[in-house]
């Protein structure tokens, strides 16, 4: 079908979708078993989870390899390119909404749940009869709720590592943009340099983030179990960190593809998609920096 122009492109049959469905099923089935296993009981959950996870990686590798081959063979016309663009845009929109759920939980806990437990508004009776010694506050002095779940803890000061990480991500957004312009100008060396820098910046963000987590667990006693403060803190920054990890891997793949000469001045959508994703991850971080760390 793809041989004549002006004709729609419909891709050929593929085994990758069913492979994807099977490995995703194995992953979640294994995860379900593993979560329900009694302490000390090994079960087959972990094995399934591992097989599924490796399968997911292999599936992505195989599926993208097939797509890259078709793309290099010149089978994708401008219309297919537009479909890919729309696909990526709407995927990022869905990610925004996913983070929206967790930001929503954060705002609700801070603005309503915790103050109500402390007796504000219609929480008067809850406070008086259930937890009359609880002075509602966010952060270290009450962010883990009236039962002080997880014990007393300290929060991560925003002006240390979080600030550094903010600067790192902002810089990486600049470097990835420079790399994009370099692709458009056909400067291969500059692309490799600035894209490589972006990957390094992403990796150093993750390094600092991991350090921050270790410090939180070891020295501040701030854990996932530190009441709703710890829950929102780790779920938000954790999901963000997972996205940075994914973004860094994708950027590294783009670096390799540039090295292999896959991208031309006007045909480099894969790079652009990853760059969009990277900017999205950057914007989410700014939200985290303001609402989780500073305020």
């Amino acid at each position, binding site marked *: 079908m793809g041989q004549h122009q002006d004709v729609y492109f*419909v891709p050929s049959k593929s085994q990758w979708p*069913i492979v994807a469905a099977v490995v*995703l099923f194995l992953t*979640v089935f294994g995860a379900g078993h593993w979560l329900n296993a009694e302490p000390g009981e090994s079960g087959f959950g972990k094995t399934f989870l591992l097989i599924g996870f490796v399968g997911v990686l292999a599936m992505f590798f195989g599926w993208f390899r097939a797509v890259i081959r078709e793309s290099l063979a010149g089978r994708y016309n401008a219309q297919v390119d*537009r479909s890919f663009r729309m696909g990526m845009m709407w995927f990022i929109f*869905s990610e925004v*909404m996913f983070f929206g759920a967790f930001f929503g939980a954060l705002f609700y806990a801070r603005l309503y*749940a915790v103050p109500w437990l402390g007796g504000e508004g219609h929480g008067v009776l809850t406070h008086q009869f259930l937890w009359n010694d609880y002075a509602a506050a966010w952060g270290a002095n009450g962010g883990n709720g009236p039962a002080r779940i997880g014990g007393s803890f300290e929060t991560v000061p925003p002006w240390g590592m979080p600030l550094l990480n903010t600067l790192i991500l902002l810089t990486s957004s600049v470097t990835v943009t420079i790399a994009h312009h370099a692709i458009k100008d056909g400067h291969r060396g500059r692309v490799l340099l600035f894209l490589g820098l972006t990957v390094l910046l992403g990796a150093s963000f993750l390094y600092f983030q991991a350090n921050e987590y270790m410090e939180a667990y070891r020295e501040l006693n701030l854990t*996932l179990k530190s009441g709703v403060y710890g829950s929102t803190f780790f779920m938000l920054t954790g999901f963000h960190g997972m996205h940075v990890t994914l973004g860094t891997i994708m950027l590294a793949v783009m670096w390799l593809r540039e090295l292999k000469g896959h991208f031309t001045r006007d045909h480099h959508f894969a790079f652009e998609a990853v760059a969009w994703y990277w900017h999205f991850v950057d914007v989410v971080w700014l939200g985290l920096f303001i609402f989780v760390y500073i305020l």
Partner: protein
Amino acid sequence: MAHAATHDQHDDHHHGAPKGFFARWVMSTNHKDIGTLYLVLSLIAFFIGGSFAMVIRAELFKPGLQLVQPYFFNEMTTLHALVMIFGAVMPAFVGLGNWMIPLMIGAPDMALPRMNNLSFWLLPFAFVLLLSTLFLPGGGPAGGWTLYPPLSLQGQSLAYSVFAIHLMGISSIMGAINIIATILNLRAPGMDLLKMPVFVWTWLITAFLLIAVMPVLAGAVTMLLTDKYFGTSFFNAAGGGDPVLYQHIFWFFGHPEVYIMILPAFGLISEIIPTFARKPIFGYKAMVFAVASIAFLSFIVWAHHMFAVGLPLGADIFFMYATMLIAVPTGVKVFNWVSTMWGGSMSFETPMLWAVAFVILFTIGGFSGLMLALVPADFQYHDSYFVVAHFHYVLVTGAIFAIIAGVYYWLPKWTGRMYSEFWGKVHFWNSVVWVNVLFFPQHFLGLAGMPRRIPDYNVAFANFNMVSSIGGFLFGASQLIFLGVIVHCVFFSRKQALDRVWEGARGLEWTVPSPAPHHTFEVPPLIHDEDLAHGHAVD
């Protein structure tokens, strides 16, 4: 028209359906085959979910516990809803969209055909995961389909239910992205946005809703998962969280979700009524804008599901008025359907019967919805059978009636053969009578104070429950006629369908042969305005 059709016929021998079963159905990139898969899955889920409903109605036939234990009863109510919503109604619309959207806008296929295949194949796995929980020690989810904590956090099944919802969510999001990309990017030249069939418009808006809210549901159930297994406190007041927070996040998804299940139904009805009234739809643009405004409003009404949890008064009042506002665009739609029929030369083939029943019965569901929107009244109706009656009027006589109407409408196009009009009508009249016997008495039960989700009840409610159960059994049995009609049409019918199956039908899908060849519109068709349902009806 002739162009596209002849091109396909002479191309068919080297572009026909693949021979092997696995290659054709499992590795497919063909929108028609994937659409068929979705519709078959939906039909299977319809009967599985329906059998759960039969268990519920059998237990409620008489007061007292006869057949099942309360826990199993609760599993049935929970899984009935999950299977019907995520397995029957949503996949049916995706299947209809897959089959018809490319045909209606002159596209060769969906924009991202391999992702389309994955969207489908995730679903059988998700349902195996969900239904397998019935056999777990401790049983399946039994806290209601909304999975409210803390109740839903009991038992082992939560992890599997949550993961099943994740898979369904991924499937829905990918399916929705595909539909948006198809509609925005693959329309044939001349198919302007405001010439698109209303069904395509409603799906475009529905797809937007899906992408906006399925991730929010994923977030909500992920918090349930971490609350149960990883010690977080999102919904635990002792840790500073709030179970009501779950309800907010869930219904931020949940209310748009009910529109996800009704907007494509509006689209189907807006295709069928003009065909059998032999008149263009009345107020095409108003129909499109009404759907868009309903979609917008769906984001700011979610707390009407939570009036009884003790929200601040200001919130109650805001959500009450916002909810009542929805009646305006919905009223526009009902008015326009009636106006389309007004003065038309009507005939009542099976799809039209279902469509007319939809307009009447869905409106009843809309009115009971308005009653529920009133905060002081809702305090009385909340969690009663009145609510059950309300949402079954909008979901069964609304969404499912529209789906059945759509299936009868397009089945000849898919198979190339006519279904049995006689048995289609038998199916219709049985369904429309028994569905009212089934659900109408539930209004009275609710007003009299019978709570929902209970296996046993006060003897005062016995008579209406028996009537409702009899209606339920017969409505369920009537659906076997539907199965028979479909099987007969697909495998045994000898009556050839015309390309333009219905004399009054307009739109590109009627310009291709019946059955629609494996590949259509590989070259963009030339669009003549008289082929279009709305082209010359706008301005």
